[in-house]
């Protein structure tokens, strides 16, 4: 009975935190929208966030895209060729790289790199009273620390997803020439036939939502640290766990929507 009541109270606590979380998300959107006009003092934070989340993630994104794109083609092409459906490889490649796996894989990379970094950095600032120092000089910490990270992570997710698709679709064209040579013209015409506006929209919508989730969740858990430095790594773990949970749920929702409509 104790266990049942413990589960019940956990669920009630989680339910209670939903309106607060949504309010925080709303505040983040409002602060980010106002960032252009009143974010002069925090532009450096935005630039540093783009540098860390986008530029520094390019090498790992390139490797993942090239390896994954080439592997899909090299494993799928002979199999589909044996079934007489070799043209399906382009549909498979576009669906996996741009529409389904690409955005979620990049979201996991960004979560692993940036969500922990953001949550622990902000959490550390709470315990060292730096957040109180911001408030004391009249700076809203969400405007100054949250908004540039929100814009930086969301922008990075958007561009990394584009970059992943670009590399993941183009690189196999070169690599397969050494194993299963396919004429470039055939490869690109097959690819463009499958690459629709809907694919691009779904891919980019996912990337934007994932970016917003990662930034909101990680800053939320960073600011939620109260006093002890032992809370900081816990905030990092929670930021990663909750980001992944929300990313998977939103991914499923957008995917279902995209196939229904």
């Amino acid at each position, binding site marked *: 009975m104790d266990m049942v009541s413990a589960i019940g109270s956990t669920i009630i606590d989680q339910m209670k935190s939903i309106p607060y979380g949504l309010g925080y998300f709303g505040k983040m959107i409002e602060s980010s929208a106002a960032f252009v006009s009143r974010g*002069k*003092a925090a532009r450096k934070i935005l630039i540093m966030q783009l540098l860390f989340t986008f530029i520094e993630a390019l090498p790992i994104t390139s490797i993942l895209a090239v390896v994954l794109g080439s592997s899909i083609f090299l494993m799928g092409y002979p199999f589909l060729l044996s079934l007489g459906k070799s043209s399906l490889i382009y549909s498979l490649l576009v669906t996996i790289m741009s529409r389904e796996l690409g955005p979620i894989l990049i979201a996991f990379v960004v979560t692993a790199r940036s969500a922990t970094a953001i949550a622990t950095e902000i959490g550390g*600032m709470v315990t*060292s*009273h*730096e957040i*109180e*120092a*911001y*408030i*004391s*000089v*009249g*700076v809203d910490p969400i405007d100054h620390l949250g908004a540039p990270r929100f814009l930086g992570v969301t922008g990075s997710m958007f561009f990394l997803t584009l970059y992943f698709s670009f590399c993941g679709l183009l690189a196999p064209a070169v690599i397969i020439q050494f194993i299963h040579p396919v004429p470039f013209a055939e490869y690109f015409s097959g690819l463009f036939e499958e690459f629709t506006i809907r694919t691009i929209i779904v891919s980019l919508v996912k990337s934007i939502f994932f970016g917003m989730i990662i930034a909101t969740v990680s800053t939320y858990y960073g600011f939620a640290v*109260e*006093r002890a430095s032992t809370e900081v790594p816990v905030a990092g773990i929670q930021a990663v766990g909750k980001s992944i949970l929300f990313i998977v749920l939103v991914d499923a929702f957008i995917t279902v929507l995209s196939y229904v409509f």
Partner: protein
Amino acid sequence: MQSLFRLDNVSFSSRGVQIVENASLSVQKGTVTAFLGKSGSGKSTLLKLTAGLLQPTFGTVYYGEQNIHTLSRMETEIFRKKCAFMFQDSALWANQNIFQNLSLPLMIHFPEMNAEERFQRIQNVCAVVGFGKDLFLRPADLSTGEQKLAGFARALICEPEILFLDECTESLDRKSRETMCQILDSFLKKGNTIVYVSHESGFISRYPGTIYIVESGKVQIKEIKKNTEADA
């Protein structure tokens, strides 16, 4: 006399631990108010509650007649320009150098000020408080005492009317302490307000004013003492 700040049955707890309990007090304009008590009695929390840095769990903190936590964005900006808080641990922004630490409040409250004017103002304030180190060092490159001076410079940079000081003389050498006291003397002569927490008897006897003794988060005694040095 109208209170500048008024705490009305304010309580504050964190993770189930009661830190301040039913505190009611007031701070008058142009006076000195001290929160004294043992370590861990809740003085710093009370100071932060008075300054509006922490939101009470129960009760209300008033700035003038208004709830400090329901001020509009514009009112908050004006209020924050008028007050400054010096933290016990300095709370300098670790990922910014001292110049940037002092520059941010100016960028917020004096947006019309250009970079050269900001630099000039920062240099002047650092000279006044006796901070002689390179402005482009980060807080981690400074000693605790130097961090304290940089924190004091940050508190003075916007020429506030109200100063909240949390153990401001801790870790400072005698000369720096005396410089700080001279700055505070002239600050008070202008009719400004100081609210502080301190354990140092020399500082307390120099700035007695209204004293609140804090014990286990409860405001126990209120005494009004006159500055004997000033009287003499």
